[in-house]
């Protein structure tokens, strides 16, 4: 982390600092007249300064059963948070607290303490809250998995910075770069794979936001189970959202024909037809991820796993075609359009039929037309056809 901060251009920090200062002034303006604060529910609620007076002390915690809950709030970090920026008061969320001593905490561990705030975010973030309720996390949670992510696991309310542009409403680049780290808190194994992938490497090493982060494939808040058949069958179209977009692909010299060439092939035709008729029925035909990988997608010319290398591709083929031998992998045209350079036999077969079909049918039609002509002429002359 420290290393990354140092590598960032210094101007950003100046901007952040200035922005933070501005926000602090903005926030102070609110504190000065609490009655006007948008999110103030109580006239005489204690100010954040009042709470922070105690809670900024380092290393304080609260014993919950055998666990201890750290209750230190770093005023600087909190000051940079979007909640501070928007003038949210501690007691807007900690509604049971209005003075010291605080009421007793009944739960016996830190997780349960977090979960007592499950409904809190809903007051202001109704849309995100209800979306999250349709997510795979919620399903796991409802099934009794208390570790399943809830709002606060991804968005620490005391430190969460603004994620979207204030006017654009779009996710900011800096927020995008940080997404995988958020998910990594629980999905570290997947994150480790992602970091080494062509996508993850570009994001984490180059801050390149052209590449997908977790949410581009999995969605945000209403994250769906990616292990379902429906999700698998829709994979080609998911990848295609970026991989058929020339504005992104042209920068890297990547073909935008990958979906078309996939769908033109036996596998892709099947998957596409399947997706349309039986989105939930399994098919044994491969989708993008079966050859290219999921979180560990590598460049096709990567020496270890790149599928542009025949021997690497064959390994992928053999997952479904265990008896396949060396020549087999060339039966897949590797997203190429047949041309005199790539797959010339296919190209010339197509070319042959391109001329052969009209030549044969044209000949037939010509003969038939002359035959019809002769019949009409003969009939007009009153004569019988031959």
């Amino acid at each position, binding site marked *: 982390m420290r290393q990354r901060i140092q590598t960032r251009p210094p101007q950003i920090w100046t901007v952040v600092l200035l922005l933070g200062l501005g926000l602090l002034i903005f926030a102070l303006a609110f504190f000065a007249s609490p009655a006007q604060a948008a999110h103030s529910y109580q006239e005489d609620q204690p100010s954040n300064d009042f709470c922070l007076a105690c809670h900024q002390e380092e290393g304080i915690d609260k014993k919950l059963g055998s666990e201890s809950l750290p209750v230190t709030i770093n005023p600087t970090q909190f000051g940079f948070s979007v909640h501070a920026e928007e003038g949210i008061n501690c007691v807007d969320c900690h509604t049971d607290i209005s003075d010291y001593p605080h009421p007793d905490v009944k739960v016996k561990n830190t997780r349960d303490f977090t979960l007592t705030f499950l409904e809190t975010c809903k007051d202001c973030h109704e849309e995100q809250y209800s979306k999250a309720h349709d997510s795979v996390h919620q399903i796991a949670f409802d099934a009794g998995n208390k570790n399943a992510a809830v709002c606060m696991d991804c968005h620490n309310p005391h430190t969460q910075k603004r994620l979207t542009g204030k006017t654009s409403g779009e996710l900011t680049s800096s927020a995008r770069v940080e997404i995988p780290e958020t998910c990594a*808190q629980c999905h570290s194994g997947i994150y480790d794979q992602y970091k080494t992938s062509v996508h993850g490497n570009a994001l984490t090493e180059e801050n390149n936001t052209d590449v997908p982060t977790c949410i581009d494939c999995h969605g945000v808040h209403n994250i769906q189970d990616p292990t379902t058949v429906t999700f698998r069958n829709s994979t080609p179209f998911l990848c295609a959202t970026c991989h058929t977009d020339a504005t992104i692909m042209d920068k890297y010299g990547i073909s935008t024909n990958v979906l078309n060439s996939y769908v033109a092939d036996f596998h892709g035709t099947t998957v596409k037809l399947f997706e349309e008729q039986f989105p939930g029925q399994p098919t044994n035909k491969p989708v993008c991820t079966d050859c290219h990988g999921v979180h560990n997608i590598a460049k096709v010319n990567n020496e270890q796993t790149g599928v542009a290398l025949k021997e690497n591709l064959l390994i992928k083929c053999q997952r479904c075609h265990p*008896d396949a031998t060396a020549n087999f992998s060339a039966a897949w045209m590797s997203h190429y359009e047949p041309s005199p350079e790539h797959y010339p036999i296919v190209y010339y077969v197509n070319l042959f039929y391109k001329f052969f079909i009209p030549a044969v049918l044209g000949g037939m039609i010509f003969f038939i037309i002359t035959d019809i002509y002769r019949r009409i002429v003969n009939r007009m002359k009153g004569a019988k056809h031959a």
Partner: protein
Amino acid sequence: MNRVTQTYLRFPIARRIEHWVMMLSFTTLGLTGIPQKFSASNISISVINALGGIEVLRTIHHTAAIVMMLGSVWHLLVMGYSTFVLRDKMSMLPTFQDAKDGTQALLYNIGFVKTYPQMGRYTFEEKMEYWAFVWGTAVMSITGFLMWNPITSTKYLPGEFVPAAKAAHGGEAVLAVLAIIIWHMYGVHIKRFNKAMFTGKQTEAEMLHEHPLELADIKAGIADRRPDATTIRKRQMIYYPVAAILTVAMLGGIYGFINSEQTALTTITPLTETQIFDPQTPQP
């Protein structure tokens, strides 16, 4: 008996059944194959969905292909019998005369010659269609084999042959279907509704019109002179064992066509992912 009531047997019942088998399998292959070639079109998607989806469609296609292959084997055996045992005239073989007949017919149609060619048992149009069907069946069988058995094929051939087979299979299919629609429809249904494949018979007028040379042969009693019973029996003694071996070989070929490999696993194991829930640090 006049020229309308006097009839001649053109196709005995066995040949008519053969034709119907080929017609039904061809139609099925076309109906289930063309939507696969043009799978992006909405009409194709409707056809595929109506028949129960792409996998069902492929199964129907494969079944029809087996029927057509069996029909082809049967045809070869019948032709063998006709040629070797009965020594029938090989009236379907293309000759130089057919080219001349075709040219003359065309010249007649456009008014350059006064008479239409006189033809025998099979006209140049019929021979053209027959040999086109033979050519098509050969191309479709070979390319079909490559697609049906890509693993076996690529043990001996470059991988590129498989997509090339797919290209040829599709191109040939379009040609075959359109040729049938254009040439066959016009030749035997539109020009004049030819009932020979339904009733097996043609009237004398029809024979005179389309197969005057054959009619002349029939009238002269030289059309189907059969060898005597002893000769037939003697040849059968040779032909039947040979045919039996050929039958076993050809059926073995079809069996190999269907069963030479299990191309793909029917269910693929999900990609081995790392542990999904794998927290970085103990949860706070």
